[in-house]
């Protein structure tokens, strides 16, 4: 069982609020991602959970036991959690097996080597058991770091941007490997990252951290399809923002009448956020949109359309995307998000 609870956690450095009243609930065997831009307070959050920093206010509980409050902090070595840092931070004076076995205290030599072998297999590095750590590639080092953190069967694994130092292709492969390893160990994990694709593809639940505050928590699809405000809507993937007003249960915009989720108050003005993949561009010589730009990515393309003075960016099927100068009619598929007032 592993249940982590943060209640009203605030951290102040030199009078500056790095974290402000953070509440989080992480359940057993959950893969929980904290998504935030740089300087949002992600690393501080992890250091607080790990016990390297003391909260200015608020409490942290692990399995119902309070491990941090503003007056006392349980030392890191008694918290029963593992960390996987950004640059893996393997011990340079130990080989791969010794690194993985570092935290295995109180086991017999036989049990210890059995556990190390088990983890080597889990991260597919059995043939590197006695390799020096400076001979490993970035991805291998990161897998050793994961195995090292998992070895003592901690209640909680903390992953601090573990893939950011790797190149794109390796990153997506390792992501799935790590997810599989965590699942196989039945681990509970918190991942902090600035990469929304990483958070959405890896986690069971995502919390968005902005300027030291948690602004939204939910399943990846929920976060992506219904961002609670315009800021998150633009942070998570491409969104086009246009002005609109509620009229007859629909949102009246320059693109026509759109269907919005949530409750609407008649006559209210606000901003509509539309995902760029929700646009459909129909080539039409009489259309009132004109293609003014196109960036080709292979599998798809981003097409910039000027429609009655408003510019939108639409994601379109690569080879069939309309060319610059073509006239198009712009359709919006599905529902959009409406944010009154802004």
């Amino acid at each position, binding site marked *: 069982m592993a249940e982590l609870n943060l209640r009203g956690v605030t951290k102040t450095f030199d009078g500056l609020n790095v974290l402000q009243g953070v509440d989080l609930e992480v359940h057993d065997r959950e893969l929980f991602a904290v998504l935030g831009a740089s300087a949002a307070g992600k690393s501080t959050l992890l250091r607080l959970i790990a016990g390297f920093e003391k909260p200015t206010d608020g409490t942290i509980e692990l399995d119902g036991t309070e491990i941090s409050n503003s007056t006392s902090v349980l030392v890191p*070595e008694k918290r029963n*959690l593992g960390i996987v*840092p950004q640059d893996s931070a393997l011990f340079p004076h130990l080989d791969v097996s010794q690194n993985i076995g570092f935290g295995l205290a109180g086991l017999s030599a036989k049990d210890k080597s059995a556990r190390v072998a088990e983890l080597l297999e889990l991260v597919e590095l059995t043939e590197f058991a006695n390799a020096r750590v400076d001979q490993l590639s970035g991805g291998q080092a990161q897998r050793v770091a994961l195995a*090292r*953190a998992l070895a003592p069967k901690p209640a909680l694994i903390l992953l601090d941007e573990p893939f950011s130092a790797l190149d794109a292709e390796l990153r997506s492969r390792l992501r799935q490997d790590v997810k599989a390893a965590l699942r196989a160990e039945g681990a509970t994990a918190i991942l902090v990252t600035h990469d929304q694709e990483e958070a959405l593809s890896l986690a069971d639940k995502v919390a968005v951290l902005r300027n030291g505050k948690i602004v939204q928590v939910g399943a990846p699809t929920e976060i992506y399809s219904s961002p609670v405000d315009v800021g998150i809507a633009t942070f998570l993937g491409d969104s086009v923002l246009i002005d609109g007003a509620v009229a007859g249960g629909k949102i009246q915009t320059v693109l026509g009448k759109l269907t919005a989720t949530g409750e609407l108050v008649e006559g209210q003005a606000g901003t509509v956020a539309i995902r760029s993949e929700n646009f459909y561009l129909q080539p039409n010589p009489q259309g009132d949109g004109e293609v003014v730009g196109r960036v080709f990515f292979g599998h798809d393309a981003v097409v910039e359309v000027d429609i009655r003075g408003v510019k939108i960016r639409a994601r379109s099927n690569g080879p069939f995307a309309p060319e610059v100068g073509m006239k198009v009619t712009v359709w919006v598929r599905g529902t959009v998000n409406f944010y009154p007032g802004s």
Partner: protein
Amino acid sequence: MRKAPALVVVLGVFAALVTTVPIGYLAVRLIQGWQAALAEILRFRTLELLGNTGLLVLAVTASALVIGFSQAWLTTKTNVVFAAGFAVSAALPLAIPSYVMALSYISIFNGLSGFFAAWLVLTLATSPLVFLAVTAALARLDSSSEEVARTLGLGKLQVLLKVTWPQVRTAATASGLLVALYVLGEFGAIALLRYDTFTRAIYNAYRGSFDRTSAAALAVVLLLITLLVIWFERKYRGEYVASKKQLGKKLRVDLGIWRLPAALWLGLIAIFSTALPIASLVIWSIQGSANLDLGVLLDALWGSVQLAGLAGIGIGIFGTAIALWSIRYRSRLGQIVEWSSWSIHAVPAIVVGLALVFFGANVTPWIYQTSWLLLIAYLILFLPNALAGLATPIAQVPVLLEEVSQSLGVPANKSMARVVLPIALPGIVAAVSLVGLTVLKELPATLLLRPSSLNTLATRLWGATEDLAYSQAAPYALLLVIIAGLPALALNLQARRALSEVRS
């Protein structure tokens, strides 16, 4: 935020007390008997010593700067022949203790003494300090600024004066002050060459009478002059330019017709600073080998090695504790301890020795004239060196590794032992070895404080030269160069870096 382990605190505080109390005691005793001390100082003799010392310090500093800078510039920045070979020979005198250099000169030129002799020997012994500092600064220099100056119409000499020199001036000034401190504290060479400066006068006053007020008063004057120079050093040391990545090929000045004269100049320095002394030592050693008492030599070698080993390990333990304290657990007390250990650096060994004689005889008679007091002297003298060498390997271990270790269930103090110390170990061993080798060469404090039954290579050498028995002294000198000087030079990081930069 983190609290330092009790062991670190105990070791650090003890070392700080040991390094500061004896010198404080010397000062307090003198202040109590200030009339007698003042009478000692206010004599014409003091003025004479001041003049002699000042003249020597200025002359040696100036000539060492000229020689060291010319060696550095010619080997790193010009197309002089055998640049790499000359660079090695420029650093080599560091392997020869200055009193050994003096001995080698006296044994060639019988009766060599006085100002000129002291100036020559100390210039040859200290110019490597300038050479190393300036070479490092030149290597960090971005050649493109020199190339730009050439395109703007400056000649080679103008580039040297207007572009190159201003950029290495801070390093050169700092090394010049280092030379000044070295000369101020130098005892062995000056005493052998019979030139009257403070250190020799202090030693003679100490040996010559039972009343040690005179020696102590002179020691305090020397201490004050040293502090003045340190103050200057701090003030004018300046900030080194942060090391930049090497940008392409280094520009080497074409010396043209000066290529040969420049090589001759470097060759001449090499002959005087290494070839001649070594040849002299070798020849006299061969002559002396016939009536060399091997038992006495081995006894002295054993004494030296024992002392150096004990001192190295002891200083290594205290130094590691202080370095850990100041780097890993920032605390007010830790800073005071580190600062107090540093503050003693560059205090002349003869002053430290005398302060310990006073302190030992009056306060701690149970360790007076035992090896313990001598080991304490080494701790005072070489702890700053050790701290400089120990700080880097410890600071280079990422704090993150300790945090990972703690998160894996290993408590903070144990993480220090399981993670930080093993990773820093090679650097710690190198620093400790360097300290041990430096202890082997130490002369003045050893002379003042050794128990009468204990002999070292340095004290045997000293005894033989006092009897003008150069052929007896030479084997000890040669042995010191081989077992202490050369390995120390090889371990010296700065020297290694300088040599590799000349070659590249």
